């Protein structure tokens, strides 16, 4: 049996959400504005969105682009970041490039990318890819840089070649830091997914949201915001669960709920 204190700790994230909805409800009632529906009205609009086949296809298409963009970005960024972290030459070549790209909002590149690649899946996936890449590269780089030299020497003495050391020592040693980057990347994937669909208005969850906005269906707008938020929370919780399992060897002992997992 859990102590009341432990129960409260576990329930805290849910209580925080309920609190937010309550504040929203009260604020909406107080302001009494058409473009600011109450929380209850927004929640009521959710089933009709998720029940509509076309909306559902749109949302799933968004998630697919996000998954492809995220996976490609992670698959390319981790090796690049690790190599940068272990090789001065690689780092000094890529670092200036990344410094230029990092502060640019990736969605701002959308119009140009649309010009080149059209408004289809490729353009939107590319933007997601760009959004995810930078934090993952950065954290992989930092993680690889921090790997203890003596650990690599120990591996070298056992007969590991330089590429083997990168994969079998630098990668696992930097994994906690890499996964921190991936977690940031996941949230950014969701953000760039929505913004790319906001600019390339053709399909997707972002498109539903902004169409509803155009037509003044504010309950649908807020319902979509809740859906996107819930997707973010769900994905993050899923990811956090996987992360905690992968790096349980490095976790400090504390049990503040940082996510919903």
């Amino acid at each position: 049996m859990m102590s009341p204190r432990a129960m409260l700790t576990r329930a805290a994230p849910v209580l925080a959400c309920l609190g937010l909805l309550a504040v929203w409800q009260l604020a909406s009632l107080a302001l009494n504005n058409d473009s600011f529906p109450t929380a209850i009205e927004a929640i009521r609009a959710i089933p009709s969105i998720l029940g509509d086949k076309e909306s559902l296809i749109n949302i799933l298409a968004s998630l697919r682009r996000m998954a492809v963009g995220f996976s490609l970005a992670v698959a390319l960024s981790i090796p690049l970041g690790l190599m940068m972290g272990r090789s001065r030459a690689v780092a000094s070549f890529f670092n200036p490039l990344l410094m230029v790209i990092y502060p640019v909002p990736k969605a701002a590149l959308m119009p140009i990318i649309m010009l080149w690649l059209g408004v289809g899946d490729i353009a939107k996936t590319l933007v997601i890819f760009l959004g995810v890449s930078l934090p993952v590269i950065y954290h992989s780089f930092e993680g690889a840089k921090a790997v203890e030299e003596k650990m690599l020497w120990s591996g070298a003495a056992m007969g590991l070649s330089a590429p083997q050391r990168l994969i079998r020592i630098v990668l696992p040693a930097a994994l906690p830091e890499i996964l921190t980057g991936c977690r940031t990347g996941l949230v950014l994937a969701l953000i760039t997914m929505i913004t790319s669909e906001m600019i390339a208005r053709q399909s997707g969850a972002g498109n539903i949201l902004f169409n509803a906005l155009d037509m003044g269906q504010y309950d649908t707008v807020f319902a979509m915001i809740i859906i996107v938020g819930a997707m973010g929370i769900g994905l993050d919780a899923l990811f956090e669960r996987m992360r905690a399992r992968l790096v349980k060897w490095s976790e400090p002992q504390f049990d503040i709920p940082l996510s919903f997992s």
Partner: protein
Amino acid sequence: MTVLPSRSNVQAELKPARKPASAMIEIDHVSQMFQTSGRQNHLALSDISLTIEDGAFVSILGPSGCGKSTLLYIVGGFVSPTQGSAKMKGKVIVGPGPDRGPVFQEFALFPWKSVLGNVMYGPRQQRVRPADAEAQSRALIEMVGLKGFEDFYPKELSGGMKQRVALARTLAYHPAVLLMDEPFGALDAHTRTRLQNDLLNIWERDRKTVLFVTHSVEEAVFLSDKVVMMTRSPGRIRQIVDIDLPRPRRRTELLLDPRYQKYVVDIERMFDDGDETGLRP
């Protein structure tokens, strides 16, 4: 330097014929230059020549900053000397290899591997069959006194336990030479003493060649056949002292042994005489 009375002929005849000592490591006129941040060259080691015989326990003793660890890294193949060369069994050392096993002050364990996983890492890299690697590793873990901790992660262990794992991990791939870089320097006095005793017990079994870097005079005398005293900045060999004390050595007996005490005092005096090269800051 001899403090022992010469052995009687009878004793010498009774001893089993020892095979002639052959050179395991030869350090030949090694100098090491480092570039510091101010673009100045810092001479860390100056013209070091040293031969380490097969099966010998040799300590390199000196104040911090005398380049003694650098010398060990050169033998390990982790650092290339600016001048001169180091040889292992007559071959010039060009890089690290499993014939020379390092044990570092920082332990340098793989934190994502359990104790067993760490110890098995070397054998698995050498393609020993998993079942055999595991059996050997478990035996080694027991030998270093960590039976029951096989599935622990390094972060769950104390410093002394981590260094035991590091020693077992290195012994697991059977290096001909153990390179120990102030291995007990980060441990408290009590743990340090226990690990020194255990290291000697383990060493007595197969008498591997050991190169042991330390700044503790007592530790060097207690463990070694030979103590190489170094000076600071640039690091040079000041004197080599043969420690002619019987083995197996028992710490409690040795502490009362006037010969042991004389070695310690003599070495400390020599460092004190050497003005700024003294052990104490």
